[in-house]
């Protein structure tokens, strides 16, 4: 009984450590695809998230009818897109992506879905960051005669920088996870590698290697993110 178990364990382990099976060139390509999808989407998510977060913050602070309606509409859209499971969203957006990019192959094809799913999430984090700023500080700067843009660029963004940085770190990490799912539309990347090469061709070592690389990417992002947050936080 004991012996049988040991043999079984050894055979499982040998499957995971059969590194001969791994095509490192392909693995590197997949890594680059994952990085491309992550970095490409994060840049746009950052800009879009800041803008939407700002709109949410500003419209929630104003009392006019137009502001109220804007807040409601944007808020509902944000909640809707944030709630759709990514794997469904990516399929749902196939026609839009086709129209937009004229292609449905390669890592580029994953970008619209990645952005649409993450920008609302990040926008909420940004909005919360703005809200955490002491109202008195905003008022003090208004009392100096600052206009809206000066308030945004001299107070809102600098004073919420730790939240903005921590938020984009979290968002980036969840984006890395999403890129792995992008395999379903054939966008490539490490998820694709783990699924197609590792699972379907029965090479667990490939899956393991892809996992480790994803983990390294995630830890690096977390590490860099934490450092930046600590650097900008003078509270």
């Amino acid at each position, binding site marked *: 009984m004991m012996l049988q178990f040991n043999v079984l364990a050894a055979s499982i382990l040998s499957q995971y450590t059969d590194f001969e099976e791994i095509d490192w060139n392909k693995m590197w390509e997949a890594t680059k695809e994952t990085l491309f999808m992550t970095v490409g989407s994060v840049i746009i998510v950052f800009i879009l998230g800041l803008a939407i977060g700002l709109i949410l913050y500003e419209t929630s602070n104003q009392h006019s009818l137009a502001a109220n309606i804007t807040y409601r509409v944007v808020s509902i859209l944000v909640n809707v897109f944030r709630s759709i499971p990514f794997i469904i969203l990516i399929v749902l957006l196939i026609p839009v992506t086709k129209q937009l990019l004229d292609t449905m192959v390669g890592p580029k094809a994953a970008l619209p879905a990645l952005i649409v799913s993450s920008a609302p999430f990040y926008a909420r984090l940004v909005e919360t960051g703005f809200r955490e700023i002491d109202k008195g500080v905003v008022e003090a700067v208004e009392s*100096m*005669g600052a206009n809206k843009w000066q308030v945004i660029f001299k107070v809102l963004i600098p004073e919420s920088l730790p939240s903005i940085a921590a938020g984009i770190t979290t968002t980036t990490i969840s984006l890395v996870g999403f890129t792995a799912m992008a395999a379903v539309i054939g966008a490539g990347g490490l998820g694709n590698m783990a699924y197609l090469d590792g699972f379907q061709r029965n090479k667990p070592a490939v899956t393991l290697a892809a996992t480790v690389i994803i983990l390294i990417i995630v830890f690096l992002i977390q590490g860099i993110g934490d450092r930046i947050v600590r650097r900008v936080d003078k509270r």
Partner: protein
Amino acid sequence: MIELANIKKIYETKRGKLTAVDGVDLSINDGDIFGIIGYSGAGKSTLVRMFNGLEKPTSGDVTINGSKISALKGKALRSKRQKIGMIFQHFNLLWSRTVLENVLLPLEIAGVPKKEQKSKAQELIRLVGLEGREEAYPSQLSGGQKQRVGIARALANEPTLLLCDEATSALDPQTTDEVLDLLVDINQKLKLTIIIITHEMHVIRKICNRVAVMESGKVVEEGHVIDIFKKPQQEITKRFIRQDTNPDSEDTDVALSQLLTEYPEGKLIHLTFHGEQTNQPVLSRIIRQYPVELNVIQGSIQQAKEDSIGSLYVQITGDNDVIEQAIQQIKNMDVEVEVINDVTV
């Protein structure tokens, strides 16, 4: 010259209308250090925020040197605000900026040329006594130092008016006095008008020359600080003064009401002296002239900006007629006398 004409502010709240400021008229002269005192919720902050248009009156006008602040909007209001400094109870500094950068902020907003910004900021940091701390972040400063940064920042664009909303309420007594001294200093050096909101009579006494007492959105009493201290009219004003001249006023009030019950035959009187009179031997003269007994319960002398103020609680016993004569005699010596019949705490 700053004028408030029939200012009203009504907030629409979920529980109906709330009148925060209720028909205030005030005029404040250039160079004044004008105090506005009142308990929490009296409407002081609401009122002071109208001076720089952070709040719009529901009705009435705020006029500063002939221009109607309450009617200004947009760009015109913003450029006016640059000439009105404001400091706050919780300092409201930007933690993301150093001391120097915080002082630079209003200069950046006003579009002062880069080259001038730095030297102006340095000069202000010197003025408030924070030399050497330029590169510190607010989180590394004490409360008093933070308020100094607040003051430097408020003065950056050479305002003609400085608004202070409870600027010393978060500070300990020692630091409060230092900040108050600094305010007097800049009032004299820079010839600017200062409006101070507070709930401490001490602040008013130390640096203001005029004061308005607010209660439930109304100004119930107003005048020169010395006059108000000498002859307070309203109960609320007397209470503020009592709390100041005698920080343990709770104790005095208890003691007074006890004495009132213990010696119903005598009279309790509160004497207020000022200036020269504090040197007069008022009590000994009375004892010599009238067959009365005097029992000093509590006394203090306090320094106001323009004068000193003495306060004395005395129990006077003897013949009722003689007591009346003695009190009249004290009044004749130009000392304020208040007969205490009951103590309202």
